[in-house]
Structures are given as C-alpha cells and as structure tokens.
C-alpha cells in the first residue's frame, strides 16, 4: 500500500519535472538596471569614442576590468588565506597593517618590489627572465572565455573550453623553463617532478569535463551555462553538480585543479622543505611574486571554469533569488570555491610524489573514465519518466559510489609491514 503511494508521488513529481524542464529565466531580471549596470557603464564609456574605435575600446575595457578585478582578488585572496589559516591555527593572522590587516597585500608588494633581483651568473638570462612572464601571461589568458555574468564575457569562442585547457597546458613549459634556466641541479630535478605532477593530473582534469561537453552538446562556455538554466519546483536548479555523474566529475575536477595549480596538498614542487623552493629556488623579489601570482591566477581561473561547467555559471540557485545580479552570483560561487581551497590547505598534509602520481593514475583516471560511461548512460536515458526516473538515478549513483569504494580500498593499503624497493 505504502509502496503504491510512493510510486504515485514519484510519478507525479517526475512528470512535473519533465514538464517544467525547459523553464528559462523570466524577462524581468534581464532588464533590471542592477543586472545591466556593467554593460551600461561600458557603453557610456565607449560612446565617447567614434564608431570605428568602439570594438577596440570594448576589448580594452574588458581586459582592463578583468586584470583589475582579478588582480585585486589575488591580493586580497593572499590576505584572506593568511587570516583564515591563522584562525584555524588558533592565531589571528596579520592585523597590524591597516584595520584587520587590510593593507597587508600592498606591504607584501612593496617588499617584493624592493628586494634585490639576483640571477645566478651561469644562468640562462633570457629564459630566466621569460619563465615567470610566460607563466603569468598564459594563466591570465584563461580568463578570456569565462562568462562572468549574463552577457559579460571577454571573447566568445566556439571552442572556448578547449582554448582554456590549451592555455593551461602551455604553462607547463614555463615551469620547465624556470627549472632549466636556473642552472641548478636541484631546480631542474624539482622542475621535472613538477612537470610529472602537472602531466599526471592533466588527464583527470580533461576527462572530468568531457561528460559536461557531451551532455551540453557544445564547447562554448556561454552555451554550457545556458544548458544549466531552469529550476525544478522553483528551487532545485538544473546545475550539473546536482546529478550523480556531475557530482563525481566536479569532485575529480576540483582535486585535479588543486594539483594543476600546485596547491596544498599537492604543493610538493614549491614547498620549503622540498629541495628548498623547487624550481623557484633561484628567483627572488618580484619574479618570485610573479610565480605566486601565476599560481593564484591559475587557481582562480580553474575555480571559475568549475563554476561555469558544473555550478551553473552565473545562474541563481532559486527562482526568487534572481534579483541578485548574475555577476554577483558568479562572485559568490567563485569565492565559495576559493574558500574551500583554503580550508583544504589548512587541513591536509602534503602528499609525497609517489602518493600523488598513484592517486592520479590509479584512482582518478579510472573514475573519470567510468564517469564518462555514466554520463553517456544518463544522456541516453533522458526519456525515462515515472518510476524509471528513480531507476535511472539509482543506477547512476551506484556507478558513482561503487567504483569509488572499490578503488578507494586499493589506494589505502592499510597497516602492515613496509616493504622498500631499493633498500637491501
């Protein structure tokens, strides 16, 4: 009797969801002045120029705003990280420079700028100079295809996601250049280890968003955000993270993003106890600051891409919260992910090189491949309604949780006598 009631309720709910599947946002939020404020400001500025120069001015304004906004975000992210890390470690964090330490990033900038720039005599001067510059430039290039708001995107590309990951892949070259140009055996060794880490985690990173592309049917970021529009029952959004394969993909993407940006617990290449500073040993002053800027920009860019691919971009989570403008929602989601990164840094110890590579190749890659199959199953069974909808969810969840538990057992080898390969 209760089983029949449950089936009846489930059938009604799933019928309602499939009817309201294609809800799009109403006209009102698109035209509210708060929402259109950035575009109106930009048009007011470019309206001062003649018609032929308007496209150029548009691009310049876009670039300037992105550089300014993310530069400030980088500065205050370093401060937020130090303060949050401090509070977690039972201490206040910097609070002497300005109220609550708010001028600390500028003090750090002055320190980095006034330090002596030491280049080793035998180092390759051209490469030594180019490495941080190339790294920062490539990290910044990723921001061009991220939709920050309803019509706020710097460059609208058809293959936007591929562009983003191509720019990220090219940053590995700059890491090698840094390690090689220092003319230091330890820097080179550390650069090789950093490259091994970056290459290992590129595969799970790329494999984890392939299901999103499959289901959205496009590589363009604006269309991926548009494919996640609408709400079920007004308060459950259609973000990909709220599906089984989406949740698995999101978690794999986040772990791989932590490793790609050399962030704790994967910060073996740059930790102080590992070969001094790894490939950054021979860099001082502002070049060192540029490397850290590149790391933070990479972190912000990957978080922004995760928000776009999995968390619905600039969409609001409920229909009645749409009065908050789209760029504000993007900022909220981005800051949540970044605070999550800081939280993880404060909690987890560093992974060793072999643990790192084992996690990538033996755990994340199989899970990402299985996730791809899971998403294909989800896409092919999109027409299942009624009680089949429950079956679809159940099968998808099982395919996510089952391999996770099984592969997780093989990762944690438990306690037992240690065997060493080279010790005799």
């Amino acid at each position: 009797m209760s089983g029949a009631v449950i089936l009846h309720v489930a059938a009604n709910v799933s019928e309602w969801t499939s009817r309201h599947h294609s809800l799009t946002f109403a006209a009102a939020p698109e035209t509210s002045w708060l929402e259109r404020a950035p575009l109106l400001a930009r048009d007011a500025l470019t309206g001062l120029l003649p018609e032929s120069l308007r496209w150029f001015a548009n691009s310049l304004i876009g670039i300037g705003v992105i550089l300014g906004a993310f530069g400030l975000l980088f500065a205050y992210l370093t401060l937020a990280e130090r303060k949050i890390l401090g509070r977690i470690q039972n201490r206040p964090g910097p609070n002497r420079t300005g109220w609550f330490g708010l001028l600390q990033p500028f003090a750090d900038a002055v320190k980095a700028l006034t330090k002596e720039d030491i280049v080793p005599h035998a180092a390759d001067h051209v490469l030594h100079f180019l490495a941080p510059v190339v790294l920062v430039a490539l990290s910044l290039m990723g921001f061009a295809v991220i939709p920050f708001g309803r019509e706020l995107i710097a460059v609208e590309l058809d293959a936007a996601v591929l562009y983003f990951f191509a720019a990220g892949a090219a940053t590995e070259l700059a890491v090698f250049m840094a390690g090689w140009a220092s003319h230091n055996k330890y820097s080179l060794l550390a650069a090789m280890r950093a490259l091994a880490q970056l290459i290992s985690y590129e595969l799970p990173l790329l494999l984890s968003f392939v299901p999103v592309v499959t289901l959205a049917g496009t590589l363009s970021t604006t269309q991926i955000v548009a494919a996640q529009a609408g709400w079920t029952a007004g308060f459950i959004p259609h973000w990909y993270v709220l599906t089984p394969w989406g949740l698995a993909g999101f978690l794999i993407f986040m772990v791989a993003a932590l490793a790609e940006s050399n962030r704790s617990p994967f910060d073996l290449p740059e930790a102080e106890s590992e070969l001094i500073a790894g490939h950054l040993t021979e860099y001082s002053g502002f070049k060192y600051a540029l490397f850290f800027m590149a790391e933070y920009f990479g972190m912000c860019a990957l978080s922004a891409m995760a928000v776009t691919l999995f968390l619905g971009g600039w969409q609001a989570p409920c229909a009645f919260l749409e009065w908050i403008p789209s760029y504000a929602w993007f900022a909220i989601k981005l800051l949540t992910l970044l605070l999550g990164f800081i939280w993880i840094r404060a909690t987890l110890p560093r992974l060793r090189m072999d643990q790192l590579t084992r996690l990538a190749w033996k755990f994340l890659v199989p899970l990402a491949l299985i996730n791809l199959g899971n998403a294909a199953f989800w896409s092919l069974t999109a027409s299942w309604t009624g009680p089949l909808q429950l079956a679809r969810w159940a099968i998808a969840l099982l395919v996510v949780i089952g391999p996770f538990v099984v592969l997780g057992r093989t990762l944690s080898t438990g306690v037992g006598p240690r065997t060493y390969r080279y010790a005799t």
Partner: protein
Amino acid sequence: MNLTLAIISVLILGSAAVAVSLRNLIHSALLLIASWAGVAVFYLWAGAEFVAFAQLLVYVGAISMIVLFAVLLTRHSRSELTVAAPALSRAIAAILAGGAVFCVLASAVLKTDFAARPAAAVPPTITVRELGTQLMLSHSAAVLVVGVLLTVALLGAIVLAASDDSKKGDAP
C-alpha cells in the same frame, strides 16, 4: 599575400631555421616549440579554431614535454647539450637530402590547382559540432585506427615501465 600571413610565416619559418642552426640543444627545442605555436596561430588565421587549440594542447602542452624529457634524460652531463659544428661531408649530405624533399614538395604544390575564390565570399567557419559529426561519420575508420594505435603505444609504455620491477610494490 596579406600582411598577417607574412608575419605568421616569418614566425614559423624563422624559428624553425634558427632552431636547426643553434648549438644549444635546449634552445633549439624551445624554438621548435615556438614554431609549433606559430602553426597554431596560422590555424587561427585560417579560421580553424578547434584545430588551433588542439595543436596548442597536443604539441605545445605535451609533445614539447616529451622532446625536452628525451633531450635531458639521454644526456649525461650539461656539456653534451652543445652540438658540435658539422663536418663538410655531413653538410653536403644534408643539402642533398633537404633539396630532394624540397623538390618533391614544391612539385606537389605547383601541380595542385587551387581554385580562385571571389574576394567578397565569407570563408566558411567549421563549428565544432560539424567537425565532430564528420569525424564520427565519414572518417570514423581513421579515428578508430588512431585510437587503437594510441592504446597500443600506452600499453607498450606501461609494459616497458613495469617490467623492471618484478618484486612487490614499494611502500605506501
């Protein structure tokens, strides 16, 4: 011949030419990578976005690593990274071989009939969707063969890497 294409060709050909003439192997490798990046810029100029980003991802992101690792792991010391000046016999052999390849390619290019297009026509841009459809439908055999080849290469690499530790795995 417009200005953009001229600049791109200078970039590609120039970096390739300097790459083969430098003494320092690592500098040569990095200039070769610059010429690959130039090829990606050429694809962008021609309107093939997907191919350009794929070129960057594969060549600059991965094959460059392979080249650099191969160079560094096969040299025992830093001094072996400078290439000695070639002897005369070697230079003659190189000119002959290069000249032969150039003749073959030049004759192929000159024999092809490039259809002249009207200047006002908009060049067609291939969207990713069309590209995917074409790959999966008319060129699916090639895609499958490439996939099998890559899988065989990967399996071979794993077998080669795993064959030298026949003992149990190392410490967790």
